[in-house]
C-alpha cells in the first residue's frame, strides 16, 4: 500500500480572515483506506478536504504555503480535469452541486469533462446506476427527488468518473436516518469492491467510527489525532471537551474500562459492545 496523498507543512489562510484556517498540517494517506474526518465546526475540516481536492488553492483566494501531493504530483500543477480523474468530491447540499436537468445528464456531465466517449459514458451510467440504485430515476429531474435519492445522484455522478479518491463533505447532514445508512453503505462498497480511498467528513460519529480504517481529528486548524478507531477513542473525555459526540457504545465501553470491568480494545461495533456487556453480566451471575 503506497502513500497516495502527502501533505507537507501546509498552511492556508483565506483572504479577509484574521488567522489561518490550517496551520502547518502534515498528513499521509495510503491507498484503499476509509478515512473519517471529524472536529467541531470552523475547525478546518472542510478546508482540509478542499486542499486535498485542489479546490484550494485553485478556486479560492488566500495565502498558501507548503504542499499537497497526489500520487506524487504537486496539486498546484494539476488542472481541474486531471484533479477530477484523481479525486471526486461530494458536497453536503446535493442541490448545490447539480449541473443538469436530468439524472442521466448529471451522471454524464463529469465524464464528458474528463474526455470519455459516448459509448463508454453509456456503459458507465448503466454500471453506476445499478450500484447506487438509480436505474428507475435516470429520466427524472434531480431536483424532483427525495433527499436520500438526491445525495445518491451526487455520489453516483462522482463515482462514474471512477476517481481513485472520493471525498465526501458531510454528505448525510440533510438526510433521514435511513438515507444516512444508504449513503454509508454505498461508500463502504466503493472502498471494498472498487478499491477506492474514501475520505468522509461527518458530525455524527457513530456510523463514521464503524466504517473508518482511520479517523482524523481536526481542531483549530491542526490535526490533533490521526489513528485507528480503537486508539482514536482511547481518550473520550478530550473528544467531549472539544464538543464532539462520541458514539454511545464507545462512551459505555469507556465507562466499563474506568470501572475496571473491561480491558480489551475500544471496539466500534455495537454488537460487540453488547456481547461484552452480556458477558460481564454473565460473569457477575456466575460469581454470585
Amino acid at each position, binding site marked *: 500500500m503506497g502513500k497516495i496523498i502527502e501533505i507537507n507543512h501546509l498552511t492556508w489562510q483565506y483572504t479577509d480572515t484574521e488567522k489561518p484556517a490550517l496551520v502547518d498540517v502534515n498528513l499521509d494517506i495510503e491507498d484503499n483506506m476509509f478515512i473519517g474526518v471529524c472536529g467541531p465546526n470552523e475547525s478546518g475540516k472542510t478546508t482540509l478536504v478542499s486542499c486535498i481536492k485542489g479546490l484550494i488553492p485553485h478556486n479560492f483566494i488566500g495565502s498558501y504555503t507548503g504542499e499537497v501531493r497526489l500520487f506524487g504530483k504537486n496539486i498546484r500543477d494539476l488542472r481541474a480535469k486531471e484533479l477530477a480523474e484523481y479525486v471526486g468530491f461530494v458536497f453536503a447540499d446535493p442541490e448545490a452541486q447539480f449541473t443538469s436537468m436530468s439524472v442521466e445528464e448529471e451522471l454524464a456531465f463529469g465524464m464528458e469533462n474528463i474526455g470519455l466517449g459516448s459509448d463508454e459514458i453509456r456503459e458507465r451510467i448503466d454500471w453506476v446506476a445499478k450500484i447506487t440504485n438509480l436505474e428507475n430515476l435516470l429520466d427524472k429531474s434531480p431536483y424532483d427527488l427525495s*433527499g436520500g435519492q438526491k445525495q445518491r445522484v451526487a455520489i453516483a455522478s462522482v463515482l462514474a468518473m471512477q476517481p481513485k479518491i472520493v471525498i465526501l463533505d458531510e454528505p448525510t447532514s440533510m438526510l433521514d*436516518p435511513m*438515507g444516512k445508512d444508504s449513503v454509508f453503505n454505498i461508500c463502504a462498497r466503493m472502498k471494498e469492491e472498487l478499491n477506492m480511498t474514501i475520505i468522509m467528513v461527518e458530525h455524527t460519529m457513530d456510523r463514521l467510527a464503524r466504517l473508518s480504517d482511520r479517523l482524523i481529528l481536526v481542531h483549530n486548524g491542526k490535526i490533533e489525532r490521526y489513528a485507528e478507531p480503537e486508539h482514536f477513542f482511547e481518550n473520550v473525555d478530550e473528544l467531549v471537551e*472539544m464538543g464532539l*459526540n462520541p458514539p*454511545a457504545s464507545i*462512551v*459505555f465501553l469507556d465507562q466499563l474500562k474506568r470501572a475496571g470491568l473491561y480491558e480489551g480494545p475500544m471496539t466500534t461495533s455495537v454488537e460487540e459492545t453488547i456481547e461484552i456487556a452480556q458477558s460481564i*453480566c454473565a460473569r457477575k451471575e456466575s460469581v454470585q
Partner: protein
Amino acid sequence: MTNVIEVKDMHFAYRDGTEALKGIDLNINSGEFIALIGQNGAGKTTFAKTLNGLLKPSQGYVKCGGIDTNQKRVIKKLVREVGYVFQNPDHQLFNNEVGKEIAYAPKNIGLSDEEIEERVNEAAAVAGIKQDYLSMHPFFLPKGLRQRVSIASILALRPKVIIVDEPTTGQDYRQSVEIMEFLKKLNEERGHTIIIITHEMDIVAQFAKRVVVLCQGKLLLDGATKEVFAQPKILEAAYVKVPEATRMAQALTANGVSKDVLSADELWIQFQEAIGR
C-alpha cells in the same frame, strides 16, 4: 395545562392533488416539548406549516389558541399563537440589518415603537445575539448565528408555540446542544411550547419529552419519548432508528436493563444496577 393546538381529522392536499397529510388528530398542550420525526417527505414540514396557517387544511380543522386557521384574516392573530422558523435562514432574512430583521414581525402586527424596541432587545438577548450584531448585515454572519437571528425574529412575536424546522442541520454537536439548550430554556423558564422537526435521534432523546412520528402523511406514533423509542419495530416502518444507547439497552433487557433508556449515561446507571454494583 391548557390546550394550545387542536388538530382534528386534518387532511392537506397540494394544488396538484398530492395528498400530503391524510387525517391527523393531535392535541398539544401549553408547555410541551415535542419532537416531530419521520422520513424525508413524510409530511413533517407540511404539517408544521398547517399549524400556523401558512397552509390551510383541505378537510378537518386546526385550531390554535381557539382560532380556526381556516378563518379569513387571522394571520396577525395566529402569528402570536404559533411561530414557525424555516429550515434555511437565508429564505427568511430579508432586511439589511439584524436589528431590523428582528423588529420586522413586531412591526407587522402593529406594535408601538417602544414595545418593538423592548422586544428586539429581549429577543436578541434570549437568543444570545450581542448588541454589536444588531447593526450588521445578516448575510455576513456565520450560519449558526443566522439560525439564531431567524429564531429571534420569531421570538420577538412572543408566540405561545415555537416550531423550529431542523434547528441542528449543519451545526456540530456542541452548537446543536447550545441551540437546543436555548430552546429548553424558552420552554422551561418562559413557558413556550416547543416543537422541533429533526432527524437527529440523539437530540430527540436528550431534549424532547414527547415524540410524534409521521409516516406517509399519517400519525404513526405519539407518546412520551421513552415510550416511543421503546417500540423500535414500529419505528422502522417510518424509517426511524432509535438512538444507539436505546438500542444497546434493548439488547440487554434480559440482563435487567429497561428498554426505554435514552442516553449513554442512563444506560451506564442502569447497567451498574443490573450487575449489582
